């Protein structure tokens, strides 16, 4: 079976006051059916822009190259109208902050039924029944009562559940979740992760999960791509990448995390320096100024993302795992 989404050579340039800036610099990935595909990276690494490009949600003047094959269509060449048919129906999106992604002045019912009325042509009564079903699916207590309420009457976790219900309204094949739990408390985050995990198991939903939180990735993503400065620097099965990171950046990110089972008084090992801004990305490997393994060629040649076996790919000529061995 072929994959649901296949992105090749995606490159995005965004207009700024100082001309076009390359934010996403040639990335490839595939999302399989029923799989959670994770895109990890720090802020400014281009992870959000890379998916907004698929949905045609970039600002005017943005330049996009490459291809994104979804169900035998290339999302990047579709016209506005066809893209609109796919957006919300075939591919839905959930954003970080449900307080800004939900409309504050519209009832939950209106926000939940808008999609099904537009895309599926359901009438008022049927749409309402569907809305109650959806709220049940995301485990909102008293779904019928919740329909008449406004977003501010719910807690952050409940709002995010409602935003997920809206995304699921038309039974999409692909759900793109951009930092869906970052604004939430850990106990609430755990609930949302369990909800997403249940959804993909029950309905075969594919999910692109974007987050900087490798703990979240570990619990939910099957496959993981780590981005740095607009490029994918490492990818592979999540369990493998997190247990045995091969790129110095991935290894550094993991070392910087507080680990629940770490020994007492271990200082966090941080990567020195800060990620480069898209305006001034270093030549060669963008990570080389912060890398302790860098060799001469890192400063001049951009390392390609190459297969290293076991489904893993790596963009690093040094491969620290081999150095240590």
């Amino acid at each position, binding site marked *: 079976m072929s994959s649901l989404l296949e992105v090749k050579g995606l490159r995005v340039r965004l207009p700024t006051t100082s001309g076009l800036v390359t934010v996403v610099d040639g990335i490839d990935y595939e999302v399989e059916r029923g799989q959670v595909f994770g895109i990890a990276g*720090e802020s400014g690494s281009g992870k959000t822009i890379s998916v907004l490009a698929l949905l045609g949600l970039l600002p005017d003047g943005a330049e996009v190259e490459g291809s994104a094959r979804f169900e035998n269509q290339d999302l990047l060449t579709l016209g506005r109208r066809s893209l609109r048919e796919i957006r919300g129906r075939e591919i839905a999106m959930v954003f970080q902050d449900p307080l800004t992604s939900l409309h504050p002045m519209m009832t939950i019912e209106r926000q939940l039924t808008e999609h099904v009325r537009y895309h599926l042509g359901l009438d008022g009564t049927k749409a309402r029944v569907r809305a109650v079903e959806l709220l049940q699916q995301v485990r909102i207590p008293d779904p019928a009562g919740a329909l008449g309420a406004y977003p501010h009457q719910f*807690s952050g976790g409940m709002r995010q559940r409602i935003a997920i219900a809206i995304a699921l309204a038309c039974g999409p094949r692909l759900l793109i979740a951009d930092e869906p739990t970052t604004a939430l408390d850990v106990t609430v985050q755990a609930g949302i992760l369990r909800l997403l995990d249940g959804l993909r198991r029950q309905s075969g939903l594919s999910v692109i999960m974007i987050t*900087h939180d490798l703990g979240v990735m570990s619990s939910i993503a099957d496959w993981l791509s780590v981005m740095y400065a607009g490029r994918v620097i490492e990818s592979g099965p999540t*369990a493998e990448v997190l247990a045995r990171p091969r790129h110095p950046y991935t290894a550094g990110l993991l070392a910087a995390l507080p680990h629940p089972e770490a020994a007492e008084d271990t200082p966090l090992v941080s990567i020195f320096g*800060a*990620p480069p801004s898209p305006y001034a990305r270093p030549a060669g490997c963008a990570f080389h100024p912060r890398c302790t393994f860098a060799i001469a060629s890192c400063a001049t040649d951009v390392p390609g993302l190459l297969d290293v076996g076991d489904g893993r790919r790596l963009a690093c000529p040094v491969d620290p795992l081999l150095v240590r061995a």
Partner: protein
Amino acid sequence: MSLLELREVEVEYRRAGRSPVRAVAGATLSVDAGQVVGLVGETGCGKSSLARAAVGLLAPTAGSVWFEGRQVRPLGRRARSRTDARLQMVFQNPFSSLNPRRRVGDQIADAMAILNLVPAGNRRARVSGLLEQVGLPAAAAMRFPHQYSGGQRQRIAIARALAAEPSVIVLDEPLSSLDASAQAQVANLLKGLARELQVGLLLISHDLAIVRHVADTVAVMYLGLVVETAPTRRLWTAPLHPYTEALIEAIPRADGSGWLPESLPGEVPDPAHPPAGCRFHPRCPYAFERCRTDSPPLVEIVDGRHVACWLHERGDAERPPSQFARRTSAVVSAGGDQIHRV
């Protein structure tokens, strides 16, 4: 007596036409020199209200705050005394807490001038020293905040707090707006400063995992009350309160094991109408009859460990509630999401 002491502090917000909200319902906490105290809890538990009361930005409705042996009075129009200025605060968002139109060095030098700590001629050198202490080049003094990333700005905010030569700094979510690598850098910096300068830190955060790396002692808040305090390592190895246990189990681990964190059933109740008895009982998997009617006091179970939970009695061994639940005659499930325990 500790440097900073909060005794039975209550903070109540009055609302026109509606019942008042008791955001903090009697919290006791202390910070010593060179000690890092972590205050953790989820959104709406009252930790930020407690922080604001601790530095006098908010008048407690009841209880009192003591700093260096004197009671902290709410901030008025007059400038703070030199003593009160030894209690400093760092805010969550360094993008809004720094003045975008003034040079970094000028903002740091303010405290020195206002409090007359450093003669005018020596201020520039002192600013350079502070910047280096927080890991920034001395040249940063001449630049503006927008030229720095979030992590660097938070360092500037810390340098500015240090300029007042504080003995205690209250930090409200200083790490939560930062990326992982910046977070680790600032966390290490804070720990180092506490050791080196013997400054007491009250670190408020919703992130238990990061607090673990920085704090010597942790206080856990739930719905306006401190439910558990303990030395950090012991809190982690054997949480006594069911809420602490739930918080620890909800933290995702980046080990590639695919382990899904446990979710806590239900929602944080409205602080204007807290549940009777123990405030955690509607969500507690171990709740029994007494929890529904009587509110458990915060008692010392063993040396240095306090917990407000009927499962534990003075002198009990340090065991997490999952190993203790047998004591209760009828363990009730809180319903909602499934609860799995190994």
